[in-house]
């Protein structure tokens, strides 16, 4: 009887009796998909945000605290994308493994090169990203850097399975480079095409593909379009051969639709993360779908 009680208490306190898998919590679904590729059956991964939500403003559900409480590793996008929702959840999770400054945290933004780092910061420019544009995962060339950083982190926390993580990562990369060649080839014909986007969420992708951004629907980050701003966009459109308007799934699309129909510009909904639209269940499918939507009519 005494033993049963002790076992019960230890289950309650640690929850770790059956935990031979590493509990990995990620902030966004794209990270979880890469962790699945690298960790396979050695990890149990959970993404907090849903892919159809605005990644800047995630509603901090208390159930996220429960997930963070049991995490061995927390992998975040970083570059302040989670600043508006994650810090209080981390404090409430009472998990010493995933405090800032501990090895249980992996900040992916530290493993890629950030673009659009502002030299002067004022919120008169809207809800600016002070460390640079944080939407770096949409450059498909950044994914190998991310998967390798994840493999290193998993190996650091779970050294017993280091070889497995490295092997999985290599297998993933081999596959990935193959797909990446296909994507690059398919997108080649878009080089130099002029586009407008809603928020500067696709900038890394645009750079990679060679698409030329001539304007954004929102006048400054986080602010909805004003009629004056739409007018100025129309001037840009009339003097440039704008081919596409790229719109995410979560912002209202009335301004984009208006410009699209008035100026006969194709409006394309581009998924920014896994689950934003159907047929984007993993990182491969996400880029397949992005490429399909970009090159299709």
């Amino acid at each position: 009887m005494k033993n049963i009680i002790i076992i019960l208490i230890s289950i309650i306190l640690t929850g770790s009796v059956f935990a031979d898998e590493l509990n990995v919590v990620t902030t966004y679904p794209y990270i979880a998909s890469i962790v699945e590729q690298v960790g396979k059956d050695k990890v149990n991964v959970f993404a907090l945000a849903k892919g159809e939500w605005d990644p800047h403003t995630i509603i901090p559900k208390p159930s996220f605290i429960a997930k963070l409480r049991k995490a061995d590793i927390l992998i975040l996008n970083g570059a302040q994308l989670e600043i508006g929702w994650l810090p209080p959840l981390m404090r409430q999770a009472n998990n010493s493994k995933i405090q800032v400054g501990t090895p249980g945290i992996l900040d992916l933004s530290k493993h890629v090169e950030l673009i659009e780092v502002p030299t002067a910061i004022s919120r008169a420019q809207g809800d600016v990203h002070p460390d640079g544009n944080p939407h770096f995962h949409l450059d498909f060339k950044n994914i190998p850097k991310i998967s390798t950083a994840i493999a290193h982190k998993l190996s650091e926390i779970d050294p017993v399975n280091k070889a497995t993580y490295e092997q999985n990562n290599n297998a993933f990369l081999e596959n990935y480079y193959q797909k990446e060649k296909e994507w690059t080839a398919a997108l080649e014909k878009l080089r130099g095409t002029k586009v407008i986007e809603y928020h500067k969420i696709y900038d890394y992708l645009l750079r990679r593909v060679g698409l030329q951004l001539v304007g954004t629907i929102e006048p400054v980050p986080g602010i909805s379009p004003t009629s004056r701003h739409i007018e100025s966009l129309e001037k840009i459109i009339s003097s440039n051969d704008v081919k596409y308007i790229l719109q995410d799934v979560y912002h209202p699309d009335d301004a984009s639709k208006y410009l699209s129909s008035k100026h006969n510009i194709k409006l394309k909904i581009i998924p920014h993360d896994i689950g934003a639209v159907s047929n984007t269940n993993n990182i491969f499918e996400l880029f397949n779908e992005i490429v399909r939507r970009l090159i299709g009519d």
Partner: protein
Amino acid sequence: MNKLPFVLIAFSILINVNLSAQTEQQSGDDPFSQSKFVPDISFILDVSYLYRDIKNDDYNLFEVPGLIQSTLEESAHGHEHAEMNSRSGFNLNYGELVVASTVDPYFDLFGIFHLSSEGFGIEEGYFLTRSLPLGFQIKGGKFLSSFGRINEQHAHYWAFANMPLVYKSFFGSHGLSEIGMQINWVAPTDFYLMFGGELLQGNNETSFGADGFQDLSGSIKVSSSNAPNLYTGFMRTSFDVDNLTVLAGISGAFGKSRLNHGIDTDAPDGHAVYEDAKILNANLTLKYIIESYRDITFQTEFLNKITKGDLYYKDSIGTTMKGDISKDQSGLYSQLVYKFSQYWRIGFRYDLLMKNEIVRNSSTLDLPDFMPQLSSMIEYNPTEFSRIRLQYNHDRTKYFEDNLKINNEILLQINLSIGAHGAHSF
């Protein structure tokens, strides 16, 4: 106390000098540069314009019978409050300065200071542990108790401009803000489950006083508390069903209370109590997420206060008498808030004070026991750093000389924040 603002101004000037020095000459140049250690700092300002169909002087005489004294009476007993949104015309509700940072691998530290027309006060100043094992956390210092749902939230997180009436009735306009310690534990379950308890000094203006008192003649004397005087316990749980999130909690506050309302003056109605007090809470929040920018939230809390103890009062010739007093009072609020775009929310709240039983020297007082208030609001949030809110209150809780005084008020509130990026609350 009055020196604090100057210390802080000096502090912030130092920080600024340090920061600009750093940007000019890059960090490498100064071997003793401290600028990387500047804590997160933000400042929040809340101002409002209130229109009420009752004159300020008259309004100050009104009370919520058995629950909230009139403003005039409160100040006569030495409680001076610049309460939020309380006067017709412009109100400076507060300027809130928040300073927060990690101390070391073991502690985080938070300071929240309120600058109001009352002066400068430490609203909160507490530490949180970062590295306790097994899901435990300790909080210590001065903080808003985790009792209930909204008590620990600062006013700018509320969906309405003023505190629910039942909270104001039981805890006063500052809520249950106490000096003490808290321990909480998050269970390693798949759904959210949290337990916690607090040991607090017990210095609440309405329900849990720690300071003793004696009358003018010295014939009665209740000594001050020598130890923490108030205990709370709370439990919260939450789970998701598809796009619906359910959050439920129960909590209780238990204490020995000494409350002096002028027994030490020559006021004929001066009295004091020495009693056992307990306040119980049950709360439920349901949030349905329709899509990224659209959700509906229903939130309700029920509170019940039960006290029993000694009453000290004065007879017709001013001699202090000892009697007994007991209270059984309850109230609730229920609110529905619909966020219908990235920038807009509307909401409705129903406040009700519904049980108001006070037995004084074995006779039950004749008090109103159905006192509702209806509020509605519409809010525009141009960015995450600014908010403009229009709120209407139809208040049927105010009385003057036993007559109900229906009070209608409209207020326009502006809340702005600068500095470190705040986070949303659930």
